[in-house]
């Protein structure tokens, strides 16, 4: 396998001399060819700056990066021929129809819709019944499919998707990730950014990013393996009081709400019994405790807290 994307100590600063925002503080990673790589972090973590540097839209203040072996600053023309890019906002012409959008993007990439139709077939077929509809009148999920088709029309070697699922409902998100898996099978390298931690498990490898720094790079399983402390899911009738009581348990490393349960990160193994006894003492009704495997969100929280 060879390297498709390489970032080396990238730095990006915005603002004036007086007030400088560090969007990226030395970000390094490598993406192998054919990999589905996730950049996972909240808004303001630096995801968009990173993507814009890699797609030659911004010049970094420090460090360097290559895409397909080409330097993002020096060889920007080469890179622009090779990559597909879907920015965070829907980057379609709202007043052009589905078909007009697709044809337009095909032409500017010196290709035709027919030439690479096999690549977009699965995706485009879903929106083809609406091909005469203006892009502005499509649903969020359909717009997303069209934008993806447009980004793929020239069979890019690397595909950059900046927050493609933000603000999209759970069903459309699921469908979108299914499409990405299929594209990966066709050998396209995909970099995707997302604020949704649960999407990490769908990537081959992920980089967890927060305030311009990468906290961890690994496979989703690897990230979870790195979570050292025992984790217990707790539930009771009064969840709000439960959380407060958890926080006063002496053997606790951290605790937080996690969907139906609260998660309690313990300092040592074998503290579960102790915790149970402690909570029963506080007279919680229908108390349930079970040791669980952490997921990426638990890891992200732990990394955020050890960092600060």
């Amino acid at each position, binding site marked *: 396998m060879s390297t498709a994307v390489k970032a080396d100590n990238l730095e990006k600063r915005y603002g004036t001399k007086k007030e400088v925002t560090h969007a990226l503080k030395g970000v390094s990673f490598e993406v192998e060819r054919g990999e589905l790589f996730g950049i996972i972090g909240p808004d303001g973590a630096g995801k968009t700056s990173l993507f814009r540097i890699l797609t030659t839209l911004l010049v970094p203040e420090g460090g360097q990066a290559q895409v397909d072996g080409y330097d993002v600053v020096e060889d920007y023309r080469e890179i622009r021929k090779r990559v597909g890019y879907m920015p965070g906002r829907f980057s379609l012409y709202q007043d052009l129809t589905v078909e007009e959008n697709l044809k337009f993007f095909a032409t500017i990439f010196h290709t035709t819709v027919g030439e690479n139709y096999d690549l977009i077939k699965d995706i485009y077929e879903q929106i083809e019944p609406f091909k005469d509809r203006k892009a502005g009148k499509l649903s*969020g999920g359909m717009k997303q499919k069209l934008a993806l088709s447009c980004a793929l029309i020239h069979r890019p070697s690397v595909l950059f998707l900046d927050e493609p699922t933000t603000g999209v409902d759970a069903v459309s998100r699921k469908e979108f990730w299914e499409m990405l898996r299929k594209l990966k099978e066709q050998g396209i390298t995909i970099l995707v950014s997302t604020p949704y931690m649960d999407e990490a498990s769908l990537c081959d490898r992920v980089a967890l990013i*927060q305030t311009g720094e990468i906290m961890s790079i690994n496979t989703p399983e690897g990230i979870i393996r790195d979570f050292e402390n025992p984790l217990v899911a707790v539930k009771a009738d009064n969840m709000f009081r439960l959380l407060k009581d958890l926080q006063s348990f002496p053997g606790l490393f951290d605790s937080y709400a996690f969907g139906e349960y609260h998660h309690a990160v313990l300092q040592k193994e074998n503290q579960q019994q102790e915790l149970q006894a402690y909570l029963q003492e506080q007279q919680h009704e229908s108390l349930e405790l079970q040791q669980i495997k952490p997921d990426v969100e638990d890891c992200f929280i732990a990394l955020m807290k050890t960092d600060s």
Partner: protein
Amino acid sequence: MGIDKEKVITANQLTKRFGDFTAVDAISFEVEKGEIFGFLGANGAGKTTAIRMLSGLSIPSDGEATVAGFDVYRQTEQIKRSIGYMSQKFSLYEDLTVRENIRFFAGIYGMSDQFIKDNTARLLHQLRLKEEENKLVKSLPLGWKQKLAFSVAIFHEPEIVFLDEPTGGVDPVTRREFWTMIYEAAESGITVFVTTHYMDEAEYCNRVSIMVDGRIDALDTPKNLKQQYEVGSMEDVFIKLARKATRAD
């Protein structure tokens, strides 16, 4: 929750049509005082239209509804005074300072100077924003902005607060701090009406409704919903229901 609990929102066959398109199709539900009510739905299911009717911004085409005891047809001004509103898109003025934002929004709701003074100090302390009070809002990290926006939305002690995707894009730690604030508000008697795309957050709600194609297809506690649809998580409940959706936004 007992039967005699005060109903803060009641909707009966509430409908909104735009031309021959029925955005909200005869929805009926009730929300109790102090409840955290999750209002879920796929993109385009009609959530935004429903919230606009309940917050007095849009007159329904049909059906009835009261919010804080006021009628959504005739008493929209009273409704607006008894609710707070916060959305992901607009909540605070980026080019005003933290203090100026609080002052401005409190002023809109006619709070007295003394009230504003006392409560601003308390709020800045709670949010640990004392140091930042004279900074422009745009210089704050997103998570802080959202927490501040929520505090501003409930500053005038409304009966109900409408939160439209308040935690979109916020980091997981701040997201939980935000929900702690929601819990505290609910404890103090403020009813919380919240939409979200994070399905784990649906679990934090006392009750959840799921809109599909303009109708409320499910409404119960997260626990009952999971039982009813025989799945393990709210995400699966949501996906099961929303897959049936035929229309888009």
